């Protein structure tokens, strides 16, 4: 835990300085997580602010400071999920040509150091964004938390409030859906398929 319980209790009591300190300590991590979850750099700060806004207004509901971090993660996941759902509603996800991106990515990989690193990172982000755009927001976030954020099943249990077995099943199914989209995009070159929800 990056902050002590006393600071959380002070923030719960309405101490703005304590809240500021909590934000300062966690913002880098939250910004990183949000950027990986939503994959749109231009909206990362907006979503992260939404996380801390929700934190501010719900801090008094936190009974035990020990669960602060999983709780903050849950707020992050919920904010990212809401954002992705709004985005999906706003514009039907473009079925970009993943195969072409994969080729470009492979080219970048082959080029190695000759390629600009930023360019490569951008392509990776686009490829993953496009791939995960073919699965539901729930699958996307769950996979991101497990595979990219590296959260353990125990931590995921605390965030999702479901038991380990149920999580394993959900993870397996989410992974299968992504793999299906991944395989389909590689075979027919038409981009990822939108699975049945």
């Amino acid at each position, binding site marked *: 835990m990056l902050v002590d319980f006393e600071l959380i209790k002070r923030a719960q009591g309405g101490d703005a300085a304590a809240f*500021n300190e909590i*934000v*300062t300590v966690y*913002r*880098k*991590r939250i*910004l*990183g997580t949000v*950027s*990986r979850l939503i*994959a749109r750099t231009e909206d*990362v*700060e907006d979503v*992260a*602010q939404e996380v*801390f*806004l929700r934190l*501010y*207004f719900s801090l008094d509901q936190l009974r035990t400071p020990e669960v602060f971090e999983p709780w903050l993660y849950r707020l992050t996941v919920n904010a990212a999920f809401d954002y992705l759902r709004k985005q999906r509603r706003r514009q039907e996800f473009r079925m970009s040509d993943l195969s072409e991106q*994969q080729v470009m*990515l*492979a080219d*970048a*990989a082959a080029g190695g150091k000759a390629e600009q690193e930023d360019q*490569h*990172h*951008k392509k*990776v*982000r686009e*490829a*993953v964004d496009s*791939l995960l755009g073919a699965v539901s927001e729930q699958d996307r976030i769950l*996979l991101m938390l497990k*595979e*990219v954020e590296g959260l353990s099943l125990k931590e995921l249990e605390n965030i999702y409030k479901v038991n380990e077995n149920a999580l394993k099943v959900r993870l397996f199914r989410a*992974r299968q859906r*992504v*793999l299906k989209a*991944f*395989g389909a995009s*590689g075979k027919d070159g038409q981009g990822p398929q939108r699975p049945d929800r």
Partner: protein
Amino acid sequence: MFPQRGSDEEKLNALLQAYKAACPDRDASANFMPALWQRIEARQSFSFSFFRMASGFVTAALALSIALGVYMSLPHTNSTPYYSQSYVEAVADANSSDLVFPVRLDVQPPAR
């Protein structure tokens, strides 16, 4: 790096790992905290005005209830006639001079 060979599982794992490297933790812009507090204050003022409006409605409803209760409990004269008697009593009162007695019938057995 994104591998060209291997199963889809391996490719996906590699892609996700590359993704992690492509999206490192980042620091916030200088405007992050002021913008956050602006949003907090905006939400607070909205909640405050909503609360004030709601409490105003509650107060008004309470005052109206009390006023109605007081009004209903006060005895007041009615312009409209109010009949406490039944119809028969009212008719009897109206015709008090005409004494009405029960009719006595002497029934005689028929002659045989």
